[in-house]
């Protein structure tokens, strides 16, 4: 196997909980990401799924170095991002871009669309010439399926789907190799979601992009990703090829997650036996001992409470962190 574009090893991101106004002292930690390993190959799309608070967004933010990870390494193309200085990181950010979930809050309402897309090029000094920059903006708009006339409009004049296209155009402005897509379609209407998904696929092909696709909508992930990692309470519990993971889930949490998603077909639904997993996600401040899923797990045994399960390869390319499969 060729070396992956991105290799994350033992990534931990613990946020301190502080008390006191004048003298702040740390009274605890939120273990948002607690030992995560994965790789993303060049041109591949890796899905990162899980429920809110599982650490998927924090993982993405660590890769962008919007957070300084507590421990672990993030090797991008041979360089460890986690230990880079500010100046080197700024350079690397040209290659690693991000698309955010909410197209309403991630675009500056006081800037015209053209300025929004041109801004990163200006900041990074990629296209110092204003006229060329303008031409590039129009090109990017067209690439993302927007009329060139949008360059002179403001975000509030656009629909959610159109705004998300602007967010994508802005990410593309840097000619990136790697894009962290953080829930890029969750805020959009169903009929618009498919448009944006197709756009992301087209761009991946056209520019040879690599995506880390963070989402909670499993159907979208199955469609878009080659491999999928399932996170629960700061850890990856299962990682496999997309179709393999969805057709043959191994970890009890993955099974529960898949069973919880209703399929848009009444006949299929009638035939499904459905028993939702009980309980709620525990707090990452004080996660359960051993396997973090054991309080909710239907197949938990005594040892699950004690020791954290190692990740094993149960089939080629299929990794599961559970002792009972």
């Amino acid at each position, binding site marked *: 196997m060729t070396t992956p574009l991105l290799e994350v090893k033992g990534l931990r991101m613990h946020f301190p909980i502080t008390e006191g106004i004048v003298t702040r002292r740390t009274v605890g930690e939120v273990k948002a990401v607690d030992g995560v390993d994965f790789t993303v190959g060049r041109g591949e799309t890796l899905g990162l799924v899980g429920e809110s608070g599982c650490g998927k967004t924090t993982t993405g933010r660590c890769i962008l170095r919007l957070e300084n990870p507590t421990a672990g390494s993030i090797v991008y193309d041979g360089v460890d991002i986690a230990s880079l200085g500010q100046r080197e990181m700024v350079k690397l950010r040209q290659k690693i871009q991000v698309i955010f979930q909410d197209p309403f809050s991630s675009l500056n309402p006081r800037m015209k669309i053209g300025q929004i897309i041109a801004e990163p090029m200006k900041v990074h000094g990629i296209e110092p010439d204003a006229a060329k920059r303008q031409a590039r903006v129009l090109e990017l708009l067209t690439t993302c399926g927007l009329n060139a006339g949008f360059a002179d409009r403001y975000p509030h004049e656009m629909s959610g789907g159109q705004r998300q296209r602007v967010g994508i155009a802005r990410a593309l402005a840097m000619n990136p190799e790697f894009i962290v897509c953080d829930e890029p379609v969750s805020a959009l209407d169903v009929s618009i979601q498919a448009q944006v998904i197709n756009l992301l696929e087209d761009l991946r092909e056209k520019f040879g992009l690599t995506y880390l696709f963070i989402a909670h909508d499993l159907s979208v992930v199955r469609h*878009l990703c080659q491999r999928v990692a399932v996170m629960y309470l700061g850890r990856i519990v299962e990682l496999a090829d997309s179709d393999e993971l969805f057709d043959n889930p191994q970890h009890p949490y993955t099974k529960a997650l898949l069973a*919880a998603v209703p399929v*848009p077909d009444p006949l299929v639904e009638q035939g499904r036996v459905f028993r939702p997993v009980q309980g709620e996600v525990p707090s990452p401040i004080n996660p359960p001992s051993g396997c973090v899923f054991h309080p909710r797990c239907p197949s938990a045994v005594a040892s699950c409470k004690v020791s954290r399960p190692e990740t094993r390869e149960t089939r080629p390319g299929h990794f599961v962190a559970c002792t009972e499969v």
Partner: protein
Amino acid sequence: MRPLLDIRGLHTEFRTGAGIVRAVDGISYTVNAGETVAIVGESGSGKSVGAMSILRLIPDPPGRITAGEVLFDGRDLLKLSEEEMRRLRGSQIGMIFQEPMTSLNPVLTIERQLTETLEQHRAATRAQAVERAMDLLRLVGIADAGRRLQQYPHQLSGGMRQRVMIAIALACDPKLIIADEPTTALDVTIQAQILELMKELTQRLNIALIVITHNLGIVARYATRVNVMYAGRIVESGSAAAIYHDPRHPYTIALLRSVPRLDRPRQARLEPVEGQPPDLTRLDAGCAFRPRCRFAVDACAGSRPVLQRAGDGDHFAACFRAGEFTATDQAA
């Protein structure tokens, strides 16, 4: 049998700077006792405004219910006085909103929020109300009810808050509950718990349920009847099986085609509904879906098609070509 709720020609409009928005433009449907009816549509299709109009919770100004009848148990709710309406809300018709954090009062304990309804509508004494509140929390699956009653909404998780909302809606034994995107803000495993709870309770207590959602999977799993809305009108209405397996409106067909399916291997490409949702201030005389419709013909520009019988039983579609679609056109 008389339906529990019979909505006839309901119109609700908003006067805005950009012109009059006909958010609900003549919708009619019925809900039978104990039945679950889903209203599906994208943002701006009028699904929430339609449901809010039933309870007359439309802020006026800018909104106004301009025409129609909302017959609940034979009484036209639009003709009731404000006082009569207030007695009905929360007692005979319960409501569950999308965001449980904003619909619960942050400065009142859970106990107070539950007992308030009971004291208002049932003239219950404080002690009786607290007793009933405990029972309700147990009913919606909240363990340790005594302690939870003393807590405030921020001390509960999202799923727990939504359970409290359900308990409040159930407090006075309603005949109908309107749930507006009840699980959109929740995670999938919690969503599944809440939906199962609602299904179990409405069946056991014979409560009719109107679920407003954009999630086609939820509709398939829980609804007996489905109304698909587009640009303020119901464009297709029928049993869940008919809507999913024999869709007769191009919007429904396109919507079902556009969603990726968890139970199917990766396909080459999705087929999105092209174009943008309509601007309700700029609708013309023709079919509102026409600009995005791949089956549109000249006639579609002339007038907006009305709901017509489109198949067996109670299957209706508002499309001039409803009868023409073949299995190939419909295939999801």
